[in-house]
């Protein structure tokens, strides 16, 4: 089976949607999609976190996320966390938080979605990525 591994180090709305769209689509293509969340990317795994649009100028970052979401809803794109949860439960998409940066950033496992995998370290991620394509988001 094909495998693609992603490193997610930022917490913008764009990076979240890119991860979600590519991850769920890859899973539908029967490809193993592994995501390694580190540094600010870890914020995306928190249930309470609402990502903002990095590409927008300062006062519009939060509003733009709402506007993009409303537009995507019109395109029939369902709630992204719901789609991701389905892909994880199908066993094709996996979300791994980075252990060391979790303590660095003060982020706890309990703050994250239940379907996130147990935290791993750099070596575990690299072992998992052996022979696979690695994409840094």
């Amino acid at each position, binding site marked *: 089976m094909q495998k693609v591994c992603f490193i997610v180090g930022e917490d913008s709305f764009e990076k979240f949607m890119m991860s979600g*769209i590519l991850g*769920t*689509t890859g899973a539908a*293509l*029967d490809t193993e999609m592994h995501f390694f969340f580190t540094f600010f990317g870890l914020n995306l795994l928190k249930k309470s976190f609402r990502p903002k649009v990095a590409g927008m100028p300062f006062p519009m970052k939060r509003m733009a996320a709402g506007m993009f979401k409303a537009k995507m809803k019109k*395109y*029939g*794109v*369902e709630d992204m966390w719901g*789609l991701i949860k389905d892909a994880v439960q199908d066993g094709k998409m996996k979300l791994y938080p980075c252990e060391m940066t979790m303590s660095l950033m003060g982020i706890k496992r309990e703050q994250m979605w239940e379907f996130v995998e147990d935290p791993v370290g750099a070596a575990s991620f690299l072992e998992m990525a052996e022979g696979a394509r690695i994409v840094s988001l």
Partner: protein
Amino acid sequence: MADVTLNALGKKCPMPILLTKKELNKMSSGQTLELIVDDKGALKDIPAMVNTTGNELVSTNESDAEIRFVIKKA
């Protein structure tokens, strides 16, 4: 006539792919699915999905308003 029809009109990437895969998972081998979409991206995306998952694209019919695919489950 296809065994199952999926209407994904008005839906854009990644929904046509995700909904088609969900539907195919429910079907049995040899059954056919007719998919109706109007997202032009699906013209390339659906064949890519059908190929990588080992299913068969039986036909593609494109008109101004919509694209109709018939997919046979492997």
